[in-house]
């Protein structure tokens, strides 16, 4: 990402003022990754386009509620996007067992997510990729099923025909390793700056 792009905190400032520039800049920063995520989850180009529009309209409508001091626009956009996409592909089943973390809660908590590091998610893509490459094949598989297909632990176990305990331990180690890769990267970046 070119360094002249506005930081999330500046975008939030503009969105709070209901300045359309802010939305354009947010789109330029996150539109592509959100679209890629929608496409990966829905496998449907026209649905993905609808979802992108819906996402940014939602962002525009919520703009005032963001806190520029937190600077976590990316966390909100990508958390809501992933949730919308999973809802889209699983609309009939989505209310099944265990699906209780609502989009409203994600909305609320991601708006006030960490302020520790000003780096946007996109700036950390390389560490995320590297972290993922270091996972073993089973860890990659369970992480993809949970993240991109929205499967629960027991659904993954059924899909892979593996014991639930095994799936849980693969998922735990996959997420633990990704957590360290992502948080480690942000700690390093703030250390360098």
């Amino acid at each position, binding site marked *: 990402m070119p360094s002249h792009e506005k930081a999330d905190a500046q975008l939030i400032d503009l969105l709070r003022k209901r300045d*359309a520039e802010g*939305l*354009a800049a947010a*789109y*330029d920063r996150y*539109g*592509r*990754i959100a*679209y890629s*995520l929608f*496409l990966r989850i829905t496998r449907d180009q026209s649905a*993905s*386009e*609808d979802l*992108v*529009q*819906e996402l*940014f*309209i*939602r962002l525009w*409508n919520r703009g005032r509620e963001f806190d520029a001091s937190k600077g*976590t626009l990316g966390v909100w*956009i*990508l*958390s809501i996007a*992933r949730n919308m996409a999973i809802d889209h592909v699983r*609309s*009939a*089943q989505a*209310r*099944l*067992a*265990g699906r*209780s*973390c609502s989009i409203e809660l994600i909305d609320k*908590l*991601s708006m006030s997510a*960490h302020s520790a590091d000003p780096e946007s*998610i*996109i700036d*950390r*893509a390389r560490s*995320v*990729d590297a972290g*993922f490459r270091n996972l073993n094949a089973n860890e990659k598989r369970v*992480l993809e099923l*949970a*993240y*991109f297909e*929205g*499967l*629960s*632990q027991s659904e993954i176990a059924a899909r892979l025909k593996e014991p639930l305990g095994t799936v849980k331990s693969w*998922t*735990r180690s996959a*997420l*633990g390793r990704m*957590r360290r890769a*992502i*948080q480690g990267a942000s700690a390093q970046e703030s250390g360098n700056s």
Partner: protein
Amino acid sequence: MSHPEMDELYELYVLNALDRDDAFQIDAHLEDDCAHCQEGIRAALQTTAALSVLADPAEPTKDLRRRTLSSIKPPARSRPWLVAIAGLSAACAALVVFSLWSATRMQQMRDQVSVLRGERNELRSAIELLTRSDTRTVQFGQTEETPHGRVLISSTGGVVFVGMQLPALDRDKRFELWLIPAKGAPEPAGMFRPNTSGESVHISSVPAERSTMAVAVTIEPWAGSPAPTTKPFLVVPLG
């Protein structure tokens, strides 16, 4: 569940990838406003949001940028509405058109479109269920002024509950749908809230056993309950 155990589960929780029991334990605990866990969830959202970069990069069209940005600018407001309206079912579209009369309601309308789009997807699932050969349809309610609607139920496909004139709920409450078997405990079939007009279309893919005698609706805490905690305000016998 202890904090060290929960600390490992926040990512799965925000991804809605936990099984019911674990998710409910965390839900229940979060209702106590635990600062430690809220912090844990915020950190988890950072991790899960970052995973989005693992999606293969794809390039949206330039036109999508134009359409998206023009949808929030006053001079070009009508166009995305037409697009949205075209995609919605006739009933939903009527609501949208009605509300377009009032410019001051534009803001609310945008939020409603997201909701309606979700409802459209639900209607699609409902239509799929309607075409199954084992689907039974039962109407309920005596008058237009009291709760009424219909239940579509399939032993292979699940249940669709269409309700109108449903009572308004407190903010922290939702309806829970139950399948009542001939023998044994009611089985939970999902949570839902009515829209501001008291309407709701709720789809559950919990397969209804042939022995399901009735469906019932209770008012429950937001996270739902494994067994009804209030007297059902609605019981629809299927026989």
